């Protein structure tokens, strides 16, 4: 199958989700994808869910990024009306926004935010960070300032949670155990009913009664918000599966990383999402086949070392090429550069590889 060029993706998508294993340069590549789109005239916002400063570093921002989009100066590298914006997900800020959105009264929002469990939920409930990411993307998609949202996700295992995230909190709030804790009425605690007593006592024995009291209090604060959360979950689920959302896999030319990428591609397919492109980052360039006779021993050793590495990497990437071919999706091999990318110039170089190779 002939692959559509990657430019078709960055020219038309409304959301591009960059997924991949840890340590493959995903954050930098997200910024490069966003740069490429901005250079082609789109108004792009790139959002990172990575708490590390990688996106800020890649964009050359010494002061880091905030929880609101910030315009990035690409100087004269932009065509037409293109713009590049960037922001970082702050889960705490976002949680507060979410609660204020869904709360029925200001008093309910205040109480929910004051709850100790609300404040620790980000660490404790798997997928909370990802849930907040979906909220941010949903908001940015509906923001008139932008026509493309590029999302830099956490490493692949958790990235799947981005797809599941909208359902996580709903599932949590509707968990049968909480039903038990809350009593069938939902509003009033009936902790001492005969049926629930052993389970409640057991939980209390394991985690201590204070924690349990906090959880029950948390559920009381959130009761009434479930319907609003569920409605949003449906919208976001539709957004992730919409044709205008493109999932791009970022990977490295290593056997284990390639395996993880193929595994992830299968999981995406199971979620009803197909991969729109695969970017292999940091490919070692092959040196010329013949080593010049004038080379000193250390140069000969170095060139052999590099040839061996480039060959091993090309072999490792083979299965990805096959998969991309079967998908009809572009495969971009991005050459390893001499230095880390930490400014607009470096991003432009990477962006150049993305729009010219396929």
């Amino acid at each position, binding site marked *: 199958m002939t692959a559509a060029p990657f430019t078709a993706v960055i020219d038309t998508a409304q959301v591009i989700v960059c997924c991949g*294993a840890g340590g*493959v340069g995903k954050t930098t590549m997200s910024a490069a994808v966003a740069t490429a789109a901005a250079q082609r005239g789109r108004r792009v916002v790139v959002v990172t869910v990575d708490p590390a400063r990688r996106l800020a570093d890649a964009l050359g921002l010494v002061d880091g990024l905030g929880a609101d989009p910030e315009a990035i100066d690409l100087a004269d590298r932009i065509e037409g009306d293109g713009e590049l914006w960037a922001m970082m997900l702050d889960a705490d800020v976002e949680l507060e926004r979410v609660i204020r959105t869904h709360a029925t009264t200001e008093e309910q929002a205040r109480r929910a935010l004051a709850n100790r469990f609300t404040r620790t939920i980000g660490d404790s409930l798997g997928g909370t960070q990802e849930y907040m990411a979906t909220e941010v993307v949903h908001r940015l998609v509906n923001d008139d300032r932008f026509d493309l949202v590029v999302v830099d996700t956490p490493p692949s295992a958790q990235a799947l949670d981005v797809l599941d995230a909208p359902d996580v909190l709903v599932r949590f709030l509707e*968990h049968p155990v909480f039903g038990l804790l809350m009593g069938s009425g939902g509003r009033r605690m009936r902790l001492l009913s005969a049926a629930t007593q052993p389970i409640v006592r057991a939980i209390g024995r*394991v985690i201590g009664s204070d924690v349990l009291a906090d959880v029950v209090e948390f559920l009381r604060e959130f009761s009434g918000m479930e319907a609003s959360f569920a409605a949003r979950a449906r919208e976001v689920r539709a957004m992730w599966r919409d044709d205008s959302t493109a999932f791009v896999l970022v990977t490295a030319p290593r056997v284990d990383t390639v395996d993880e990428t193929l595994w992830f591609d299968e999981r995406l397919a199971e979620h009803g999402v197909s991969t729109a492109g695969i970017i292999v980052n940091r490919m070692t360039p092959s040196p010329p086949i013949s080593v010049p006779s004038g080379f000193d021993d250390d140069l000969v050793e170095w*060139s052999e070392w590099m040839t061996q590495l480039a060959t*091993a990497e090309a072999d490792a990437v083979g299965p990805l090429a096959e998969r991309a071919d079967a998908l009809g999706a572009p495969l971009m091999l991005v050459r390893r550069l001499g230095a880390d990318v930490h400014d607009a110039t470096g991003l432009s170089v990477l962006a150049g590889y993305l729009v010219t190779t396929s």
Partner: protein
Amino acid sequence: MPPIDGSVEESATDNTSAGLPWLLPDGTLPTGRARALVLLVVGKGGVGRTSVSAAIATAASRDGLRCLIVGLDGRPTLRQLCPVGDGPEVKMVSAGTALEDYLLDVGFGGFARRLATSGVIEVVGAAAPGIHDLVVLGRVKQLANDGAWDVIVVDTPAAGHAASMLTSVDGLLDIVDGGPIREQALAVRDMLSDPTRSAVVAVTLAETTPVNETTELLQTCTEVGVRIAGIVVNAVESAPASPIPSGVRGAALWRELHDEAQSRAKAAMAEIDRVHAIAGDVAVAVLARRPVAGMDAATVGALARDLAGGSA
């Protein structure tokens, strides 16, 4: 390319062992210990943490130590990276089953199973942040007290997670007022804060972001009171000293590649200097990058020799 010697500094003893003493509290091999020394190997994704874990375990086995290597992420790769036969024993510990196992152990009996199937475990996990990390560390502590091993090498999850794993104990002690989880947290804290029982080995690349993350991780270790046994700078590339002679065929391309190699090697040296600066008295080992796209037991064996500080 000339290999970079596994230059290990501060290996304080004249012990002739294959590679472990620099990671030990007093530089002597912990043979015949009643409780195993636990080495938690930490590092962000892509730095080669699993390979280095396997190399440390391989070195320990070569030293004649009874060594166990524990994987936490459920990936089967660990087994393929360790020599078969007289190599380290490999074991997987999963957060999901560790809590259930623990509840069974502390006398919840069949009730633990009912809790698991009813979804209560999931809820307990969500209610007390870090509880899964705690039971995993609790399981490691249990293995260490078993007496069957001298050294236990733990391949921990990625750096951000490793930090929360270490802080989970204090976090839980703050919020859980009683019960078996609190007892477990106290026991795990005892293990982590005893430098003769446990220590962290940080793995990084000679690149800015991983070194920054290592710095943060080491701060967390200090705050939590965990001994830092050593820092391994992995996959370092060097560049040939000789210049590309003029007039050779393809000189322009060769020069471009050569310049890139030089600039990467220079940046790597600067990062290694930063590692030394943050390391203070902590030992630092530098491992050369291998020209491979995947790891196997043979390559790990070579890394293990480099860790020893001698040449392969």
